[in-house]
């Protein structure tokens, strides 16, 4: 198993290398000037100022040289400096990532809990109205444009009904988010500030629901079809034949086996969250990686884009690895090669 993990880690490095190469290629095949956005009107017309700026950011060197400089720094853990914010990209990522992780964890909780629940109900009552309704919800989950759904929930629940705060992570007047781990709920719990925990949760619920909706749809579908498949198997029939109640058949026998493949879907769903994040964070004013990625992409801030891409690719690979390992632990039939 260790050999397997090592091999996967080796591939991960290769992957990250590839990702950096792709971004770098795009960034330089493009007829655009990322620097231009960062100087004032009058400074732009002064060639001396422009030259000084290009030199400062290494933009005057040939392409391959820029890439090797970048790779060299990368090995040292230096992702370069964001052109847009002027901060080291690593610092930016560390600042924005906790917000995104916090939101994704809650979105995943929503997705997994509701997804499995709906999937089970759907399978048990298959082709009954409950099944039809839940299947419609799960298909909605994967069909609804998240930017529109986010807008709609914000409008209805925050603006019209006033049940939830309007956006952001905390009430800025009451709490200061700076100075902790960046995970506000954790920060609040650690410091015993339960009002802050409550406030952070109130801000989390809507975006987490919107973000988790897609993954919930995936999980509901998968749970339903797996459960139906397992329930048609011989050992379940045997259990039924022995006179076991339907309830015990489902919860005691079928569910555990049916849920194993769901882990894979959950993993896929988690990676999908990172895509939907761009819209949800934009609309809910959530200061996370998604917003950072959007702003970096539209200002063609390539060091930042490269950093974000690698962070997400890294997360993606790690999650997949964890899932594979989990899989092996839960299902002894799986063997690593």
């Amino acid at each position: 198993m260790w050999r397997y993990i090592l091999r996967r880690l080796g591939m991960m490095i290769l992957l990250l290398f590839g990702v950096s190469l792709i971004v770098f290629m795009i960034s330089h095949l493009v007829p655009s000037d990322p620097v231009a956005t960062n100087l004032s009107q009058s400074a732009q017309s002064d060639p001396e100022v422009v030259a000084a700026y290009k030199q400062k950011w290494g933009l005057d060197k040939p392409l391959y040289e820029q890439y090797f400089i970048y790779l060299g720094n990368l090995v040292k853990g230096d992702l370069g400096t964001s052109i847009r914010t002027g901060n080291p990209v690593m610092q930016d990522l560390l600042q924005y990532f906790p917000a995104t992780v916090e939101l994704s964890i809650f979105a995943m909780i929503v997705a997994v809990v509701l997804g499995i629940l709906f999937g089970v109900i759907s399978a048990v009552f298959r082709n009954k109205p409950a099944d039809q309704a839940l299947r419609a919800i799960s298909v909605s989950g994967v069909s609804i444009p998240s930017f529109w759904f986010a807008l709609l929930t914000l409008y209805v629940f925050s603006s019209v009904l006033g049940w939830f705060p309007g956006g952001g992570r905390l009430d800025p007047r009451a709490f200061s988010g700076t100075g902790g781990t960046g995970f506000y709920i954790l920060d609040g719990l650690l410091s015993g500030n339960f009002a802050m925990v409550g406030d952070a949760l109130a801000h989390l619920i809507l975006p987490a629901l919107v973000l988790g909706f897609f993954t919930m749809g995936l999980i509901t579908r998968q749970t339903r079809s797996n459960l139906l498949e397992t329930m048609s198997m011989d050992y379940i029939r045997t259990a039924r034949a022995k006179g076991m109640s339907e309830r015990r058949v489902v919860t005691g026998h079928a569910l555990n086996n049916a849920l194993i493949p769901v882990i894979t879907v959950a993993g896929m769903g988690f990676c999908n969250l990172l895509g939907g994040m761009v819209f949800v964070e934009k609309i809910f004013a959530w200061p996370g990686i998604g917003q950072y990625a959007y702003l970096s992409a539209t200002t063609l801030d390539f060091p930042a884009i490269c950093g974000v891409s690698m962070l997400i690719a890294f997360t993606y690979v790690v999650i997949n690895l964890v899932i594979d390992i989990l899989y092996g632990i839960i299902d002894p039939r799986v063997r690593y090669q």
Partner: protein
Amino acid sequence: MKKFSLRRLICAALAGTLLAASLAGCSGQGTGSTGKTVVIGAATDLKTLDPGHAYEVYANMITYATYDMLFRIEGSDIENPKPSLTTDAWSLDDSRTVYTFPLREGVKFASGNELTSADVVWSIKRVMNLKSNTAAHVAGIKSVEAPDAKTVKITLKEPDASFLTKLASNAFCVLDSKLMKENGGTDAEDAASTDKGQAYLDKQSAGSGPFKLTSWVKGSELVLEKNPNYWGTSTNVEKIILKEIPDSNTQIQMLDKGEIDIALTLNADNIAQLKGKNNVEIKTASTAVCTFLLMNNDSKIGGPMANADVQQAVRLAIDYQGLKTMCGEGATLPWSIVPQGFVGAKNRPDNYQNVEKAKELMKKAGYEKGFEITLTAANFDTEGMKWGDIGQKIQNDLKQIGITVKLETPEFSNILDQYRNGEIPFLLMHWSPDYYDINNQLAFLPGDTVGERAKWSAEGHDDLIELGNKIIGEADKEKRTQYSQELQDKMAENSPYAFLLQHPKTFAVSKTLNNVAYNDLSKIQLAEISIAE
């Protein structure tokens, strides 16, 4: 692993979610009123708070609170900077190039260090040598000296009627030179590459203003606290928090719920949500930002757009009244390059549109049947008004005179290079002055910065250039007004530009605040706000 129970896991997770939800429910209002705090929600573009590098739209809002300059804009009166670090005894010699500024007594930095003329000289020299975004402000300075500890002498290369206005901007913020030298700051000739002060100034301020910067997480939150060593009088506000909220609807929601006190970056269309709320006041202020169409004067690039008759036909075909409606309350129509608030500014008549005359001009130019042209309008906005929307309006209007406009909306950063090199045939742009004087607008003259971008060369335009030169140095306001108007009249109907709108600034303020003054340079005068008792 046989007893691995996903069921239990799910139950626990479900319970956890419910607990979380109930906790969130009972927390309800988190009104932990922490003293006298003002919270501002805005979508800013702040990249740095180093006065030597900053040029961003909202930079002066912060530097005005944390630094002092020799001159300062008070309240909303952007036309008349008032002495601040200097006294009323300042003077200008007869050559109108040598300024002598006696410094105010008893001014201390937030650090406790005394502010002397050495600090002023050091700060200005640093900016001159940084060769950064603020370079234009100090370009006219020949020398800056400190004859004694409380006097500063600045000598200009040529007379400059806009110098006091320039003095009132972030380029002339006075930094605590002792503190800065300890933290990597330098005013040496090679400061452009050796100065390390920016990183320091992005974390804390080094000034003598009414507030000091205590923390800044870029793109998220900025905190100012009262400077206990401030020399002047200050209000009852202890702390100001600037919260980065990119979406204007979110700002409105938060203002309505009392989470923020000022929603600063709104647009004319969504402000309607706040009408009729009695805890909020909607404010409209004027800015100097103008949008304009640039029609490339080189026929190799602009094609038919380079034709003077076509250019005038375009100006005549536009429905300015409609644009004004779209832009909202407070929008004005600049006649030419000079926006309201600048000396001699003239407005375009609302009913300027004249499609018949425009058609005649098209015919005269030989384009009776019209032509097709691409209008570049970046994915960007001016004070909340999307360029794409303006572009669609122009497209619609020009259809009437046979010009088929194809719209392109690339990212702003993608077109800047082409804009600077004058490679775009037909372009929607805006101009936000670096300093608030007509001199800044002279960049539009033929052969000057923007003129070159329109491929409008100086050749054959001696009259315009001469007028411009007169305006630069003219001290007499009446004469300057006259020159300004003459210039506008000459350029309005005979230049490769069509000025569209001067955009208003719309924002909303909680009624718990008093004295929220706005001007286009320092935006909200943070240091002047007070909280109603």
